[in-house]
């Protein structure tokens, strides 16, 4: 039943690791073989060595960025699912909320960043808000599709058993929507980190985006690459954790 190409599987994981190792090998050979300067392409070994020496700073930056991402992710997820629930329970709201949400989403979320930075400052709050804005729309769309999958005949069956609206919501609507809500959550992990990092590059007091920005200013491209590596590791870990949760919770697929 699962036709989602992004759906996780052990096979894909093995292929991914193999592909990564192969890429790093070619990269190392090209960088060393052509003796490329580090502002064009530093060798992988050089980047890894930098990650080790700068581990404390990079670790703090990663924790900072992940903190923003996860907070924004949870907030955005709650807003998206909450809105979808409102639209489902009060159908007339659909005509108001769906166009408004689409209008907000039709502009790349980064376009809002100067305003968000102005309103919420340079600290973590502005990043959390940006991530929440970006994630909430994806989650709204996925959750709405999930709630729309509820079979009216099942609702009628539960009504014939004398079920209240709350019981129908809890025992039927929410579990029916769960698979699509969780696949939306999985897809939103990567997006939340990207938005957090990009916003940090526009103005922040810490985080991986801020580290990248600072390193570019002092022409330290090995540091830029080290931060990028850490960002992709963090992103993979976040994605992996949510995928694992999804597999555990939606066992019936």
């Amino acid at each position, binding site marked *: 039943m699962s036709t989602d190409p992004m759906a996780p599987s052990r096979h894909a994981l093995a292929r991914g690791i193999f592909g990564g190792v192969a890429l790093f090998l070619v990269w190392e050979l090209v960088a060393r073989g052509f003796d490329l300067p580090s502002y064009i392409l530093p060798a992988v070994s050089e980047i890894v060595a930098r990650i080790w020496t700068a581990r404390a700073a990079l670790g703090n930056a990663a924790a900072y960025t992940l903190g923003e991402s996860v907070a924004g992710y949870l907030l955005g997820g709650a807003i998206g699912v909450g809105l979808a629930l409102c639209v489902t329970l009060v159908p007339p709201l659909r005509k108001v909320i769906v166009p408004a949400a689409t209008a907000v989403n039709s502009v790349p979320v980064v376009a809002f960043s100067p305003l968000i930075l102005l309103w919420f400052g340079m600290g973590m709050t502005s990043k959390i808000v940006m991530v929440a804005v970006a994630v909430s729309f994806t989650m709204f769309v996925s959750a709405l599709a999930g709630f729309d999958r509820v*079979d009216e*005949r*099942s609702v*009628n*069956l*539960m*009504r*014939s*058993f*004398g*079920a209240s609206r709350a*019981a129908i919501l809890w*025992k*039927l609507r929410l*579990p029916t929507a*769960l698979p699509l809500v969780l696949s939306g959550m999985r897809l939103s992990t990567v997006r939340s980190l990207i938005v957090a990092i990009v916003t940090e590059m526009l103005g922040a007091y810490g985080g991986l985006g801020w580290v990248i920005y600072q390193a570019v200013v002092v022409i330290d491209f090995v540091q830029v690459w080290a931060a990028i590596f850490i960002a992709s590791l963090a992103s993979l870990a976040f994605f992996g954790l949510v995928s694992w949760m999804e597999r555990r919770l939606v*066992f*019936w697929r």
Partner: protein
Amino acid sequence: MMTRPQTDFTAAEAAMTDTAEPILDLRTLSKTFGEVKALNGVDLKVQPGEFVTVVGPSGCGKSTLFNIVSGLEEPDSGSVLRFEGRSVMARDLLGKVSFMPQRDLLLAWRNVIDNAILPLEIEGANRAEARREAERMLPEFGLAGFAKQYPHELSGGMRQRVALMRTFMFKRDLMLLDEPFGALDALTRAMMQRWLLDVWSEHRRTVLFITHDVDEAIFLGDRVLVMTARPGAIKLERKVDLPRPRGADLVTSPEFIALKRDLLDAIEEESMKTFGPNAH
């Protein structure tokens, strides 16, 4: 226009059924959806413990009839709906009648036991007790050893038995079964019919059973009702005087064949109204 049911009841039987209090009593029941009249003056009495089957051409409003009796839809004003001797609104019947729709509608995230106890859970019963009771019922429903299986691990026939078990666990005197075996292959269906009769004789509930299969209607029922084409009403009512318990050989007996011919003629006549050259 009123369509009076033609009956072949003897006077004595008619007198008997009049004195007993019917569990369900519908009089001039009508239902209109916008421009479309789905039901037009349905008159129907069901006695406690009776197994009544309803056949009719497709789109004759059988499902609308069930939706009203299960409380999901209100009939048009002027319809009389009496349940257990009291005049009621359709919505008063929500939670009072155990209804089984055509599809099994099992919940994918619940195993066999938890699907079966869903109505008890909604009633607020103790979940552990309900589970124990369901465990005891599994063998009777041919589901022994399948307590922890999930719907996607079961065959169509088994899923249907889980749905039936769920309907039986919702202990109501009146059961509405809407083509429960419609999606099954002929062999499984014949086995399920005999099995249903066994379970029914065990539990003695009143059953109102919709089907479009005349053999099934006669094989199962104490009484068969034929509905007219849309707008639906009761066209013909025949008592099935065949002995119980009923076996597979019954369907080739002369009485069965004669009854089947009568019923098929009536259904054919109604189907022609929908599909024939004079259909409007």
